[in-house]
């Protein structure tokens, strides 16, 4: 499994297929939101909404690319020949996607703070990081599952977004509700712990579910 993760990260480091594209996409979307909303800065609920919609669409970009090398260059066959448990591919892919998301957010969230965010919530950084990590986990799990579903089809670029977006609506609800009190103009308020619990539960349920059904997507 470590080998699988290492392989994907090395491929990404050498080719730079996913992360730069996701990052550029995020920054362009922030600029787009500036003009579309006609605002110099956003705060509170609006800021949380802009941030999460951008990050999720960027994630969809990465999800679409996640299994392409496996499909097009025979990675699936190689993996199926290897004497390892099939779910290890799922765990590895989810870990890779999680790393991609964290890497993108390391740059995209500061860019958001500079470009669009009105208040500078230094005090709220730990809470923000917690929400981001929990949501990333959910996106990574769901994204791996949807990516594996989409790679079976001929219309990957279409199927992945239309499947991923409805499945991620509960994540957006929880993440945006948890983030908006942190980004208020009047200073950050306490983080609503309830939404962290929802995020955690969502991660757990879909993690287990994906773990159970992923095997069937590989059989050939």
């Amino acid at each position: 499994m470590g080998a699988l993760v290492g392989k994907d990260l090395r491929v990404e480091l050498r080719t730079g297929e996913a992360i730069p594209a996701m990052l550029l996409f995020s920054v362009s979307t922030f600029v787009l939101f500036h003009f579309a909303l006609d605002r110099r800065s956003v705060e509170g609920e609006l800021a949380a909404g802009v941030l999460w919609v951008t990050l999720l669409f960027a994630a969809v970009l990465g999800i679409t690319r996640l299994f392409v090398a496996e499909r097009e260059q025979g990675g699936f066959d190689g993996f199926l020949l290897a004497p390892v448990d099939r779910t290890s591919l799922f765990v590895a892919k989810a870990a890779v996607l999680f790393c991609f998301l964290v890497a993108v957010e390391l740059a995209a969230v500061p860019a958001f703070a500079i470009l669009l965010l009105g208040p500078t919530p230094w005090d709220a950084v730990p809470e923000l990081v917690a929400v981001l990590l929990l949501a990333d986990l959910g996106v990574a799990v769901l994204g791996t599952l949807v990516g594996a579903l989409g790679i079976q089809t001929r219309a990957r670029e279409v199927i992945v977004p239309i499947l991923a977006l409805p499945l991620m609506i509960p994540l957006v609800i929880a993440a945006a509700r948890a983030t908006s009190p942190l980004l208020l103009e009047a200073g950050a308020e306490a983080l609503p712990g309830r939404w962290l619990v929802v995020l955690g539960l969502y991660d757990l349920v879909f993690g287990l579910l994906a773990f159970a059904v992923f095997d069937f997507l590989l059989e050939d």
Partner: protein
Amino acid sequence: MFARGLKPLSIASVVLIIGAFAMVFFYAPNDADQGFIQKIFYLHVPLAIAALGGFVAGGVWGVRYLRDGDRAHDLRSYVAIHISLILGIGALVTGSIWAKASWGHWWVWEEPTLVSFLIVFLLYACYQPLRFSIEDPERQARTAAVFSIVAGAFVPLNFLAVRMAESFTHPRVLSQTGGSMPGDMRLTFLVSLLGMAVLFVTLCKYELTSKQASMQLRALKRRLAADDDEAWLPTGRSAAPQQL
């Protein structure tokens, strides 16, 4: 294989649906503050419940398909989701009409049940495109089964999340279908619900039977074509399962 009990089921659904409508119009009283329009409730809610039940049933057939690989289970899963999607459109349209009539807007974001239903519907609307974009029948069935399981588990979770998002920000003032229905309304509702459930099963059985009949027809045609040394008939790409 699927046609057993089709005639009694058809008769039962006709009788129950007619009976339910008769009760809606002639037995159940008009609602005190909404008047006549409240009667759409007896159509809207059973439609939505039948559709959600069908979605979950599709997931259960999906599990069974993955477990024993019987293609009939895949066909059942497909048909359950297909009919549920049709009922789901009905539920959304009637819900929208009801919202317009009683709250003045075609769409009300404060009603968590309606919003959750829309999200679930949007997700299941991807089922047919997903199937259609996979040619290999074996892989199509397997992928569709995985989708139906994930989506089936998503249904209750999504309802929970959307309900939480609303009920804590503002109280649910729009709830009218609370448990305090008077007896004659409740009876009418239960008969409508039963009628819709039986109708759902009947429709599923009809579609299953028709799909099976066209599969047999295709197999016979292919045999004839082979006898005549004709090229075999192409089945064409389809979202529905093509053979058992």
